[in-house]
């Protein structure tokens, strides 16, 4: 797979635009073959296109409260390479407002009674399924009404698409008459589920859909007024760079062919809500508004600084993953565990701890969780707990729980995780956690500055990886000792959802160190010390818990990682032995985010910005970014 991607990239660089376009389509097809529904390993992810008002252009994505508007949706990846259907019988979906909003009503027939949800089946041959939308209330802000489409699969539920529109109070921002040039925009792919971007550039394209041959339409891409979330650049962007221009001028040919550009988040202004980053297309000469597209600059943020809606969306998604989809428990049963359960497994433990792979393995673990959360709500990111600072907004009853006494975190009755439960674990509902540092304190850990200073010049990974011992270990062990899950042992720490905030911060510290020391070249020992692949190296030394001693399978840059590689078992005691189960497999591949593929290698996790793998074209890496540094 990796080689194929590289070959594609090379060919793309050296061929004409139309060949590049063709290859891009082939690449999409290839990727779509790998993208499975998160938590449903054997179920391919349907890539869904939605058209409001049944046109590909967004100029008419404006409804009313009085008349219904025809919309349609289809599967964009209905066939396999040799003609077999990917989804025989079609894909059953629910069409609805996202949780917490109710400004649209839906029906399956024209003039039908609108309801909060309808069920439809998207045909298996890629043809359109029609539905109708009416506004239940009006809005002053464009793209503030969202059509959500989710699967009704038996093993899980996944949001497949979210398309933004508006129910204006008066005339729509783009009036139907006189007719304006129609432009079509695709951010990433034709799907909307990839319209969630970070700081890295996302390959996008635009075309003039109703032009005439030999004519040219000059347009300007910018942010909608009052929402400066996006940055742009044209298709000459160098590899390893990102889009940083507030506006972009493009000439669209009348032939209708696509013009490529890149879009990225504005570091100064990440999104706080879904579709609040609105790409606006105007005619350059006249300033006439032609189209708008709703995106989101979805960034991992300091969880202590979230807005109330951001916090609530996170909690709702977390609870869905836990209680509704029963996915959270799979993470619990993977971290330092095999089939023997909470007692823990040394073999499972060493895949992820006490060695070089500690950081890349947990980067994958955290990203896996983030993608599962995003399957429940694509507007959610896996935020972080900056554990060397006080975080009074995290340790509240409305968020991750307050603890002033007793063995459990105190949670408000309306907090979705108030009844946190772990099916099959045999533990009480709630979160067993004591925080001796109180709601306003923090664990006794090395500060961020101290951590970033680890080692001696020239500051290499072999030194930085000792952060596993501090700040990582005391962030766990000083969070309650005794009865706290998060402090108890690695085999039970994951029971506490705070684990993922803690490890998102560990991961952020590594990313920040990579940025600070320019350690992005994943074939450089300074970036990752154990290069090459495991080749029968000796077992762990006498001090088995030395982070320098682990030389087992899964520690080397070219090694694939358990559990995602689904390799289990082996000779007991052998350094290549794997745990006897692999629950979290394959890795959930996100639409239009190539990395890290379904079976990540250590080195693909090291290369989180895609700078090593993509040396000739820009890359969106692993598809996430942090609110406190801009790694370009």
């Amino acid at each position: 797979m990796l080689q194929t991607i590289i070959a594609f990239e090379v060919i793309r660089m050296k061929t004409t635009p139309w060949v590049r376009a063709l290859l891009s389509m082939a690449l999409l097809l290839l990727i779509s073959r790998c993208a499975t529904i998160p938590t449903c390993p054997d179920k391919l992810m349907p890539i869904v296109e939605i058209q409001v008002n049944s046109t590909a252009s967004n100029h008419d994505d404006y409804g009313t409260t009085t008349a219904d508007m025809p919309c349609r949706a289809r599967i964009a990846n209905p066939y396999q390479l040799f003609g077999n259907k990917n989804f025989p019988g079609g894909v059953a979906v629910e069409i609805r407002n996202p949780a917490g909003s109710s400004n649209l009503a839906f029906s399956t027939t024209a003039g039908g009674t609108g309801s909060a949800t309808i069920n439809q089946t998207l045909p298996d041959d890629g043809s359109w399924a029609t539905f109708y939308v009416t506004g239940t209330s009006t809005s002053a802000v464009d793209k503030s009404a969202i059509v959500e489409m989710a699967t009704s699969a038996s093993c899980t539920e996944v949001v497949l698409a979210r398309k933004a529109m508006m129910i204006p109070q008066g005339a729509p921002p783009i009036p139907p008459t006189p007719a304006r040039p129609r432009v079509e925009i695709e951010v990433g792919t034709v799907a909307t589920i990839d319209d969630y971007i970070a700081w890295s550039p996302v390959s996008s394209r635009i075309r003039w859909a109703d032009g005439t041959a030999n004519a040219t339409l000059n347009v300007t891409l910018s942010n909608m007024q009052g929402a400066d979330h996006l940055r742009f650049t044209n298709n000459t962007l160098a590899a390893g760079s990102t889009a940083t221009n507030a506006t972009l001028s493009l000439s669209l040919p009348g032939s209708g062919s696509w013009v490529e550009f890149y879009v990225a988040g504005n570091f100064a202004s990440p999104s706080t809500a879904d579709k609040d980053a609105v790409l606006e297309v105007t005619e350059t000469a006249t300033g006439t508004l032609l189209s708008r597209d709703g995106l989101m600059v979805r960034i991992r943020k300091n969880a202590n600084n979230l807005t109330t809606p951001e916090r609530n969306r996170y909690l709702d998604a977390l609870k869905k993953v836990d209680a509704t989809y029963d996915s959270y428990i799979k993470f619990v049963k993977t971290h330092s565990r095999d089939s023997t359960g909470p007692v823990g497994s040394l073999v499972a433990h060493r895949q992820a701890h006490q060695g070089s792979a500690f950081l890349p393995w947990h980067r994958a673990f955290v990203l896996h969780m983030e993608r599962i959360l995003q399957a429940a709500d694509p507007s959610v990111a896996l935020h972080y707990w900056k554990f060397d600072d006080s975080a009074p907004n995290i340790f509240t009853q409305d968020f991750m729980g307050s603890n002033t006494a007793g063995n459990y975190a105190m949670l408000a009755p309306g907090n979705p995780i108030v009844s946190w439960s772990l099916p099959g674990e045999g533990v009480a509902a709630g979160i067993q956690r004591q925080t001796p540092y109180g709601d306003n304190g923090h664990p006794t850990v090395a500060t961020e500055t101290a951590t970033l200073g680890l080692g001696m010049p020239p500051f290499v990974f072999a030194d930085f990886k000792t952060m596993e011992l501090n700040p990582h270990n005391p962030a766990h062990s000083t969070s309650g000792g005794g009865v706290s899950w998060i402090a108890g042992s690695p085999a039970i720490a994951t029971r506490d959802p705070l684990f993922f905030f803690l490890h998102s911060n560990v991961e952020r510290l590594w990313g920040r160190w990579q940025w600070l020391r320019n350690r992005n070249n994943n074939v450089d020992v300074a970036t990752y010390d154990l290069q090459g692949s495991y080749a029968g190296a000796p077992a762990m030394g006498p001090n088995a818990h030395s982070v320098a001693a682990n030389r087992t399978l899964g520690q080397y840059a070219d090694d694939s990682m358990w559990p995602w590689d689904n390799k289990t078992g082996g000779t007991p005691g052998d350094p290549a032995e794997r745990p006897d189960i692999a629950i979290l497999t394959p890795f959930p591949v996100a639409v239009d985010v190539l990395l890290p593929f379904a079976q990540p290698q250590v080195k693909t996790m090291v290369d989180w910005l895609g700078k090593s793998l993509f040396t000739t074209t820009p890359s969106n890496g692993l598809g996430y970014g942090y609110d406190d540094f801009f790694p370009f």
Partner: protein
Amino acid sequence: MTTSSRFERAIVKATIFLLLAASPALLHAQESKRQALAGEVDEYRRTVHEAAATFLNKQLSPAERIKAISPYPFLYDEKQVQQFKSVVLDNEERPEVRATALDKIIRVVPGDERLGKLVLEWLGNRGAPRALRAEALKVEADLSFSNPVVPEVYQKLLDDPEPQFRVFAFTKLIAHGDARAQQKLIQGLENPDAAALPGTTAIGILSMAPKKEFYPALYRVLQTTRDGPTRLEAIRALGFYPEARERLIAISRDAKEKEEFREAALAALYAGDRDNIIAYATPIVANPDTPPRLQGIAIQMTIDVRQATSWRAKAKTADEYDRLVQRLAREAADPEVRRIASKYVESVRPHY
């Protein structure tokens, strides 16, 4: 320097200037942020180096030495690390000084057999100076998170006179499935006067045990104890014990019980028998005298099990419980109950 080389340098400088000037301001800002961070880190490292040098100065008093290095978690200079190790191993040094030295080089302990042995020796030796034992416990607590191997010395700590050593040992051993440690805590539940740990702590630790051999003893505790906190922990931990289910149901519905016990009982039922949560929650939600917090929690639990589209697909029409919550969304006296009930209606989307 020749005229031509000066000219070339000027051209290069001008080119760099133009390139920089042409780059977006953001990139400059980020680069300067990175430089600033690098400077801050360097400065910090220098400060630590100086503090370590102060600590190593035996001319100073122990208090001055300890105060100098205390704010810093670890050392960067390998030579100083070795000097700190010498302090740890030096029997002539004060225990507080040795403990402080060890604290700053914890990261080398896993790879240093001599230090590793010393830590375990101090941990198990009740006669060792208090400062050294306390530091050994801290080192072991930190390192044991990365190292799931349980040393033999933990067994000795189960009877340690210091409670924090006992709590540590019980936690580690029970999490790793140690039967002896579990039995000791169970015996303590049955005979509180001879218990190794207070009831609440013991139950908290026991509930982390992979094998739940403590359920019968804990159920007896639930039926007999008069200690509120112990009873609360017992209720919470018994959700998976079928024999306790009827008792938990009764507690959850009993208006005479304290609210915290009712809440814990409902949480236990939810954990142990989630599929039947609607049946457990309905009498609580329907009773107008139920305290608002408990009522809200009960509704929240039912959101969890009914918000999936698979539930909606199965439930063709709204049932009695859906209608009950719909009424509360409109009419409940407590605003938080109204809010949670509204959330149920919004998330579950029953076909009313």
